[in-house]
């Protein structure tokens, strides 16, 4: 190898590829050595300024007092600063006023997403699509009313539906008849609807009363929506809703958030929920 080295006298190792790519055995260039020592100095400087060397019971803190947590908090403060402008504006406004302002309501929707996820999504689904036994928030059916103020109230004070169990008051035949009437979408046509005083809560036309939270029986939406809808209706009539005397009763409780969330948070949530389906 050495005797036919095509590049004699240049200190190569004799490893040559592609005619002229060769490995040289030269000392590292000056600039490289300078960079090398400079980077070592850099490390020392860094160790003095920043937290770095681990010990048994902690680590060196560095004289700059920098911490990752501190930097995170600074970043957070920056975000808060940006938000503060909106937040102060929101404070003096009612939910209705917020809804009237396109820019502010999009800010509210964006910033309430986490609130909704933490407090509401477990029952109502992450986008208000509801869940088995829990009402859909994205539709236009509002048992207690869909005005944004009413939604605010529902969140603050919670809701608890009441329907007495009818199991002992109806014969099987009557139950079948009533259930069929409810399924038909026009329960008021069935004389039993009057006789059994269903109208007292659901209204003489069967459209429900928002003040009581009684369901509208004439629309396309079922509060307790199940695959076998007829069986579901029968179950509700028989055992009622939140009737403590009946162990098979349906549960329909919206907890009260007034003591868990601030007024502003609830206001934001109301706007957020209103925006799901456009409210009422």
């Amino acid at each position, binding site marked *: 190898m050495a005797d036919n080295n095509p*590049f004699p006298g*240049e200190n190569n190792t004799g490893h040559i590829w*592609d*005619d*002229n790519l060769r490995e040289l055995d030269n000392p590292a260039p000056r600039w490289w050595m300078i960079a090398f020592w400079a980077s070592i100095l850099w490390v020392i400087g860094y160790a003095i300024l920043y937290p770095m060397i681990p010990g048994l019971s902690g680590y060196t803190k560095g004289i700059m007092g920098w911490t990752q947590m501190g930097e995170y908090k600074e970043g957070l403060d920056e975000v808060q600063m940006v938000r503060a402008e909106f937040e102060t504006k929101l404070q003096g406004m009612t939910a209705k006023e917020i809804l009237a302002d*396109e820019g502010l309501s*999009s800010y509210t929707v964006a910033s309430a997403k986490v609130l909704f996820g933490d407090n509401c999504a477990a029952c109502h*689904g*992450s*986008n*208000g*699509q509801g869940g088995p036994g829990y009402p*859909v928030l*994205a*539709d*236009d*059916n509002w048992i207690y009313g869909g005005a944004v103020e009413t939604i605010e109230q529902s969140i603050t004070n919670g809701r608890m539906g009441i329907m007495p169990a009818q199991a002992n008051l109806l014969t099987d035949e009557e139950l079948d008849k009533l259930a069929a009437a409810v399924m038909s979408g026009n329960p008021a046509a069935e004389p039993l609807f009057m006789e059994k005083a269903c109208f007292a809560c659901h209204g003489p036309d069967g459209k429900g009363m928002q003040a009581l939270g009684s369901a*509208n029986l004439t*629309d*396309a*939406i079922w509060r307790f929506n199940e695959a076998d809808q007829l069986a579901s209706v029968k179950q509700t009539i028989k055992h009622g809703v939140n009737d403590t005397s009946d162990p098979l009763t349906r549960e329909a409780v919206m907890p009260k958030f007034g003591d868990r969330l601030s007024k502003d948070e609830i206001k934001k949530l109301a706007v957020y929920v209103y*925006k*799901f*389906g*456009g409210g009422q």
Partner: protein
Amino acid sequence: MSVNPQSKHDAVVDELYAEAGHWKINTGEEKIHAKRIPGKWRIWKWLASLVWLPFFLVPYLRWDDRQAILFDIPNRQFHLLGVTILPQDFWMLSLLLLFFAILLAVVTALAGRVWCGFFCFQTVWTDIFTWFEEKLEGSPQKRKKLDQGPLTFTKVRVKATKHLIWIVISALTGISFVAWFMDAYQLWADLVSFNLGITAVVTILLFIGGTYGLAGYLREQTCFWLCPYARIQGVMVDNTTAVPTYDFHRGEPRGRVKKGSSEAQRTTGDCVDCNQCVAVCPTGVDIRHGQQEGCITCALCIDACDAVMEKLDRPKGLIRYESLDVLNGKEERPLLKRPRVWVYSLVLLLSVIGIGYGMATLDAIEIKVIHSRQPLYVLQSDGSIQNKYTIKVLNKLTEDLQVTISAPDIEGLVLVGAEDPVTARKGMVTPRTLFVRIPRDKLKVESQPLVFYAETTDSSGKRLSSKRESVFIGPK
């Protein structure tokens, strides 16, 4: 006898070998000072260098009241004459890059490193730098002598002038580059009043350092060791590629012409071993060793060799553009029979069509429709099905627009939330949430296409519109 052909021949021979000993093949340890000679390819090289002129001049062109071509990074806009391209349209840029990548491939496959030899900024700037070097310091021999000679006043003056010119060119390069990214006239105004922003200053300084170092000092070493394209293009060259080639069949055995000898008695090949091809080579390559990675295919050695052949009355073209196949007696494969030509041309065509389509369909407003996925649909109390959409209105103009959103006339369709027009802010995307309701009995399929339209008029009364297809989803 007025002119003795023999003595003329001898004079040519003398001149030919006078400098032959000076030319070294580049192994990197000695600075290459290439000789400049006139010739056909030299002219082509100058012409090719002209493609860089627009780099310096175009930023000063105006269109309406702004720069004709401007990459406005802070505002994320690209102005091309009257057209404004926003990041949303930047897919065209990737097609443009694809186009140039394939162009490089096809040219290299056919004619070698044309980019390197004629167009590359490394080559062009080095060429300009050495042109000044030659004007100031003289021929390569003189330059070498000057470099080795003692430090005299003349040497300092000449060298200082040269470096000054180099730095001015470098600075102009940096300023011209920055001028593509900010208003060129403003740039000069800021520059002379020392008000230039830090990013621009750093960019210009980097360019000065880079240009000065690369074109002034590193030169061919850049192509040898630094530039990846050298090797990338190297692998694109094959036996059918026409590159500057030394015809060794004709040239060998090479031999010096002897004074007093006549052409008729010659036993050697056509190469007279004058080393002129090495002399002119900007990378210090001896092309007679065959095509090699140091060769940037600038064709200057063709000029050199042709000049020698002309003087000696031998046929030109001892060094010429030729493929290895042809040199070895194979027939040249016609262009249309080379699959690479077809494949490359196809890709070129596709990218041009793509860019053409993109430019033709650039709209002043554009909408995107995002169908809400969770829930896919919501049953309403009147039995209709509601879908939720977020419409994003992109306004590429420099004025705010009132954009009206509408949906097609499907029986029973109700569009909620589009009653007032969307105020689309200039140069931005403005979202709007909409609901579409369709009675359940009007829904024939689970998922049906639904087109949204956006319409507006700008301040000059021109009607602008855009549409986008989405879907309407209902229960099974």
